[in-house]
C-alpha cells in the first residue's frame, strides 16, 4: 500500500466501546430466554477418588428440578489437543482434583438447583493424591490417569539443535542456575457463563469462549450431533487470557441439561468455580546452563523444565514444547538443547495463559543472563545488545525471523530511564532492571490437522453504503472486532464507523480458529484485508466502467468516491455500491489466511513456528523496603515491537495490560492449594491481583518494524509484552539490594530471607565456572 493511511496509526474508537462503558453490552449472563432454567454443577470434594456409584433419584424427585446429568449422559472423551483427549463433560469413573465436575442439575431457580446438588449421593473410593510434581514423576502406585506409562508422566520432549557439546567447549564461561515459577491464574472479570438452547433438534450455545470453532467441533463430537446442528455464539466477553480458550465443562453440561429438559439452561460459574476451572500458568521447575565467550556472546544453552500440569491435558503438550522451543530468541543461540517433562498432579488443570509457555522460561533465562553478565562484569543492556537477534534470520531450531525490532526495543526502553547514567548508581534500595522477550503471532499449525485457512472473512457492501465484515474471530475484550472494522475500512477506504462487524457465530461467520496464540490481528487481519480488497476492486471496476476512467485514478475516501472526470465528480459510497450491484449482484468479497509452511523437519517442529514474531524489552525501576521486604515497582517502561500499531491506544492498552499481569505474577498472585487439595484463595479478595494503587504508570513504547507479511505490517501485541516484565522486576531488585530471586512469585518474606542470607554471607544458589 503506497498511499497514505486514512485511519491506521490514528486512534480509532472501539467498536463496542460505548456499549461496554455504558453497561449496555450483553454478556452471556445477561441473556435470558423464556422458560430458562438455572444449571449447577456438583463437584468432587476429594482430590483423587474412584466413583463407585452416583444416585441422583432424590435430586430428580425434588420439585422444580427439570434435569439431572452425570458423566454417563455423554461419556465421550475430549480435550483441546487431539493428543490428550482425557476429559469428560462430567466425570466418568474417576475424579482427579477437588472441584472436578461430577454431575449437573437444571432447576427453576438457583436455590432449588443447589438443594438438588446436595441430594445427589456419590459413593467415592478415596485414593491417595499427589500434589508435588517430583513425586508425580516417580509414584508408580498412584496413577492419576491409567494411560500414563511411567508413573504420572504425561509427556516428555527432548530436542537438540546445532552442536551443543562444541558450543559449551567453545565457551569461556559456563553458568548453571535453577528457577521455579509458581502457578498463576487468569482471573478474568467476567466469570464463565453458557446458555444452551435446543430447538428442532438443533443446539444453540451462547457462551463466553475464545474458541467458538473448536468448541463447535467438540460439542458435535461429545453430544453426538452433526456439526450442522450445532451453533456457537459468543456474546460480549469480559476477559479470557487463555482461561476461556478451550471447551469447558459448563459448556457441555448446559447443553446436556438443555437437551434433557427441553428448556434453555444457563450456567454461570461462581468466582470459586472460575478458579477451579483454571487452565492457567503451569508451575515450572527449570534449570539453565549457558556457555558464553568472555565478551558475553552466547555459545550454547541447555534447558530443562518440569511442568506441573495438574489433573488433565488441556493445552499442556503445547506448553511443554513452547517451554523449550521459545528460548532460541530474542538472542542468537548457536547451539541449543532442552529436556522437558509434564506430569499430572491432583490439582485443577493447567493450560494456556497469556504469554503461554514462554513466560516461565523467560523469567528464568533473563535473570540467568543478568547473573552471567554480573559475573563477567558486563552491563545487562550490553550483553543483550551483543546477543540480540536480527531480522531476516533463522534460529537454531529453524524459526524464521522476518521483521525484528528487538534492538530498538532495548535501546529505546533503556534510553527512557537513562540506563547508562542511573543503573547501578541509584541510592540503596532503588534499582533498575532490564529484560527482553519475543512471542509468536499465531501458531504455524492449527490444533487439529487440516489444510484449510486458519482465518476467513467475508465482506459485503450493501446499497445503504454500509460495509459488513463477517468473521469467526472472537473478540474477548482485546478489540478484534475493532481491528476487523479498521482493516476493512482502511483497505476499502470508508470510515471505520461505517463498518459493521458480525463475528464469532458459527452459523453466520466463516471459520477463524480463535483468540489464542496472539493470532487474530495477524491472521484474521490478513483474511479481512484480502476480502476487503475484493470488495474495493469490484466497486472501483464498476465506477471506472460507468464513468470511463481508469481504476488507478479512483480513490475512496470516507463515504465518497472521487472520480477524476472533467469536471470531477464525487459519488457517494452507496452510489458506487449500486453501480457494482447492477453489474454483478451483491457486492461481496472473501478472503482467507494460511501461514506459509514453516515447520522444520524434526519431530516436535510443529510448536514454535509462527509467520512472525513480536519482540519486547522492559525496564523496571523498583524500590525495596529492606525492613518489610516489600517491593514497589515505581516505573515499568515497556517497549514492544508490534510491527505496526494499527490503532495505537488499543495497542498501548494491550502492552500495559500484559505488563500489569506480569507484575501481578511477580509480586502478588499465588495460585496455591492447602495440603488436602483445596484452592488456597479462590476469591478476588484472597487471590491478589494488583489494584490500581499497586501498579505504576506503565510507559509503553510502540516499536514498528513493519512486518512484510502482517496486515499493513502489524504483528501481535497482546501476549508478548508479558514476558519481559517479570525478569525486569527481578533484575531490578538485584540492582536495588543485591539479591537474586530464583523463585516467583516473590513474597516480602522471601526478600527478607534473601537479604538475611546475603548478610550472613551464605553460598548463593546457582554457580558459574570459567573453562
Amino acid at each position, binding site marked *: 500500500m503506497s498511499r497514505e493511511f486514512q485511519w491506521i496509526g490514528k486512534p480509532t474508537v472501539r467498536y463496542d466501546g460505548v456499549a461496554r462503558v455504558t453497561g449496555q453490552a450483553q454478556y452471556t449472563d445477561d441473556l435470558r430466554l423464556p422458560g430458562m432454567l438455572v444449571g449447577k454443577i456438583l463437584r468432587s470434594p476429594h482430590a483423587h477418588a474412584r466413583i463407585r456409584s452416583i444416585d441422583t433419584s432424590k435430586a430428580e424427585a425434588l420439585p422444580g428440578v427439570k434435569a439431572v446429568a452425570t458423566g454417563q449422559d455423554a461419556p465421550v472423551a475430549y480435550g483441546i489437543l487431539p493428543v490428550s483427549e482425557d476429559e469428560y463433560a462430567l466425570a466418568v469413573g474417576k475424579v482427579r482434583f477437588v472441584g472436578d465436575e461430577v454431575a449437573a442439575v437444571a432447576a427453576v431457580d438457583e436455590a432449588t438447583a443447589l438443594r438438588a446438588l446436595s441430594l445427589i449421593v456419590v459413593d467415592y473410593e478415596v485414593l491417595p493424591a499427589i500434589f508435588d510434581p517430583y513425586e508425580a514423576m516417580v509414584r508408580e502406585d498412584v496413577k492419576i490417569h491409567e494411560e500414563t506409562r511411567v508413573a504420572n508422566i504425561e509427556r516428555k520432549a527432548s530436542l537438540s539443535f546445532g552442536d551443543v557439546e562444541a558450543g559449551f567447549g567453545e565457551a569461556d564461561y559456563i553458568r548453571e542456575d535453577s528457577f521455579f515459577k509458581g502457578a498463576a491464574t487468569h482471573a478474568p472479570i467476567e466469570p464463565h457463563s453458557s446458555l444452551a438452547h435446543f430447538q428442532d433438534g438443533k443446539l444453540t450455545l451462547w457462551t463466553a469462549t475464545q474458541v467458538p470453532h473448536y468448541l463447535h467441533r467438540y460439542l458435535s463430537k461429545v453430544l453426538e450431533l452433526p456439526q450442522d446442528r450445532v451453533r456457537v455464539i459468543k456474546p460480549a466477553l469480559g476477559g479470557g487470557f487463555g482461561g476461556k480458550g478451550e471447551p469447558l465443562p459448563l459448556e457441555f453440561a448446559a447443553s446436556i441439561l438443555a437437551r434433557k429438559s427441553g428448556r434453555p439452561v444457563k450456567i454461570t460459574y461462581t468466582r470459586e468455580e472460575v478458579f477451579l476451572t483454571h487452565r492457567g500458568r503451569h508451575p515450572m521447575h527449570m534449570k539453565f546452563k549457558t556457555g558464553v565467550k568472555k565478551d558475553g556472546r552466547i555459545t550454547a544453552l541447555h534447558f530443562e523444565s518440569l511442568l506441573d500440569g495438574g489433573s488433565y491435558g488441556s493445552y499442556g503438550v503445547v506448553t511443554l514444547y513452547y517451554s523449550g522451543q521459545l528460548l532460541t530468541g530474542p538472542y542468537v543461540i548457536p547451539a541449543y538443547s532442552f529436556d522437558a517433562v509434564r506430569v499430572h498432579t491432583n490439582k485443577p488443570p493447567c493450560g494456556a495463559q497469556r504469554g503461554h509457555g514462554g513466560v516461565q522460561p523467560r523469567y528464568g533465562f533473563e535473570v540467568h543472563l543478568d547473573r552471567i553478565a554480573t559475573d563477567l562484569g558486563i552491563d545487562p543492556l550490553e550483553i543483550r545488545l551483543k546477543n540480540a537477534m536480527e531480522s531476516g534470520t533463522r534460529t537454531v531450531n529453524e524459526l524464521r525471523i522476518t521483521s525484528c525490532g528487538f534492538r530498538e526495543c532495548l535501546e529505546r526502553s533503556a534510553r527512557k530511564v537513562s540506563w547508562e547514567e542511573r543503573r547501578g548508581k541509584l541510592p540503596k534500595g532503588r534499582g533498575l532492571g532490564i529484560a527482553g522477550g519475543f512471542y509468536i503471532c499465531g501458531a504455524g499449525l492449527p490444533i487439529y490437522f487440516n489444510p484449510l485457512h486458519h482465518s476467513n472473512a467475508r465482506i459485503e457492501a450493501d446499497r445503504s453504503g454500509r460495509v459488513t465484515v463477517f468473521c469467526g474471530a472472537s473478540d474477548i475484550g482485546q478489540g478484534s472486532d475493532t481491528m476487523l472494522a479498521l482493516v476493512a475500512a482502511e483497505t476499502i477506504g470508508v470510515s471505520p464507523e461505517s463498518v459493521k462487524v458480525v463475528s464469532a457465530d458459527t452459523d453466520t461467520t466463516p471459520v477463524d480458529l480463535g483468540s489464542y496464540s496472539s493470532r487474530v490481528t495477524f491472521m484474521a487481519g490478513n483474511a479481512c484485508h484480502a476480502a476487503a480488497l475484493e470488495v474495493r476492486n469490484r466497486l472501483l471496476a464498476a465506477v471506472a466502467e460507468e464513468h470511463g476512467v481508469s481504476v488507478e485514478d479512483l480513490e475512496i475516501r470516507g463515504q465518497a468516491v472521487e472520480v477524476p472526470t472533467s469536471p470531477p465528480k464525487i459519488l457517494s459510497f452507496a452510489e458506487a455500491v449500486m453501480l457494482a450491484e447492477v453489474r454483478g449482484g451483491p457486492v461481496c468479497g472473501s478472503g482467507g489466511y494460511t501461514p506459509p509452511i514453516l515447520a522444520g523437519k524434526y519431530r516436535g517442529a510443529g510448536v514454535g513456528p509462527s509467520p512472525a514474531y513480536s519482540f519486547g524489552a522492559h525496564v523496571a525501576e523498583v524500590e525495596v523496603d529492606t525492613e518489610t521486604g516489600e517491593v514497589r515497582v515505581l516505573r515499568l517502561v515497556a517497549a514492544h515491537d508490534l510491527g505496526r500499531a494499527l490503532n495505537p491506544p488499543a495497542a498501548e492498552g494491550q502492552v500495559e495490560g500484559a505488563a500489569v499481569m506480569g507484575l501481578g505474577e511477580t509480586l502478588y498472585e499465588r495460585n496455591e492449594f492447602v495440603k488436602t487439595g483445596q484452592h488456597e484463595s479462590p476469591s478476588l479478595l*484472597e487471590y491478589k491481583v494488583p489494584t490500581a494503587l499497586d501498579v505504576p504508570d506503565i510507559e509503553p513504547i510502540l516499536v514498528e518494524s513493519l512486518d512484510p507479511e502482517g496486515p499493513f505490517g502489524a504483528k501481535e501485541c497482546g501476549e508478548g509484552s508479558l514476558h519481559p516484565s517479570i525478569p525486569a522486576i527481578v533484575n531490578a531488585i538485584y540492582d536495588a539490594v543485591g539479591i537474586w530471586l530464583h523463585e516467583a512469585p516473590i513474597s*516480602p518474606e522471601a526478600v527478607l530471607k534473601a537479604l538475611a542470607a546475603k548478610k550472613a554471607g551464605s553460598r548463593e544458589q546457582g554457580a558459574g565456572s570459567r573453562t
Partner: protein
Amino acid sequence: MMVLPDFQLVRPSSLSEALSALAENPGAMPVAGGTDLLVSMKHGLFSPTHLVDLKGAPELHHLGVGEEGATIGACVRLSRIKDHPLIRTRYRALSQAAEAVASPPLQNRGTLGGNVCLDTRCYYYNQSDFWRRSLGGCLKKDGPICRAAPAAKRCFANFSSDTVPALIALGARVRLVGGPNGVKSERTLPLEEFFVEDGIKRNVLLPGELVADLHLPPAENLLSGYRKYRQRASIDYPLVSVAVAFQVREGRIREARVAVGAMASSPVLALETMEVLEGALPAPELLASAAELVTKRTKPVGNQAGSPGHRRLMARVMCRRLLKELLEAGPL
C-alpha cells in the same frame, strides 16, 4: 453467582423497634452495611431467619465531636468518619484506620458498629460451603478440629478490624443496649473488655444486644496514628496493624496506649510497650526497645497469608515507624 439463603428482612425505624425485633426472633441477626455479613451468608456461614436492618434507627447515626470527647453511633459509615475534619485532627488514628478499611466503595457502605462486631477470619473458615465441606469443616463451623492448629482445643480465627485497634488506643468505651435483660437495659465498658480471645465467641455481646455507640475521651494534647501491613495497597484486610496514642507533657510521653490488630482473636493491648513509653523522654533508642516488645502478647497461628513469624516482625516494624513518625511530627 452465589445466592443468599432465604431470610426475612425487618426494617425498624427506631432503636427500640430494632431491639424488639431481635428479642422476638431468636434466629435474627442485626445487619448494618452488610459488607461482612452478606458475604458470610453467601458462604453459608450464617443462616439467620431474619435480618434486622439497623440503618433505619436515627439514634445510631449520631456523630458528635466536642470538648468532652466524641460520640459515634454504630451506623455511622466509615467514609464519614474518615472525612470528618475534627476526627482527622483530633483522633487521627481513627481517621487513618477508617481510611484503611477495604476500599472506598466498602467504606461508603460499611459502618463503625459493623467494623467493631466484625466476625473473626481464617483461611479455613472464610470459604464457600463446598470448600469447607470438602475439608470436613473446623471448630468454628461444622467440624471437629481446628485446621490451622489441629492440636489446639480452641479457634484462633483472626480479629481483623482496622478501626478497633485505633479506638482502643484512643481509649474508647462502647455502649451496649438491649439483650436478654430487656430492651431498656444498657451497659458501657472499655472497648478492650468488649472482646474475648476466642475466635468463636469473639465478644461479650449477649443475644439480642446491640452496639449503640462508641465514646472517645477528650483529645487534648493527643498524638495518635495507625499503621496497617497488608499485601496490596487497597482492599486487603490487615495481616497486622498497630495503633498508638499518647500525650506529650513537659517533654515526656504520657498515657501511652498501644494496640495490635489482626494478630489474635481479639485486639491486643501491648502493655509492655506502653510501660516502656510511659513517662519516658522520646528518644530513638526508646522507640526501638518499645517496639520490640509490641508482640510480647501475640502468638498468631498460620491461618492468614504471611507466616506468623513474619507478621510478628512486621508488627514491630510498624510500631517503630509509627512511634517515630508521631514523635517527629509532634502535636498538630
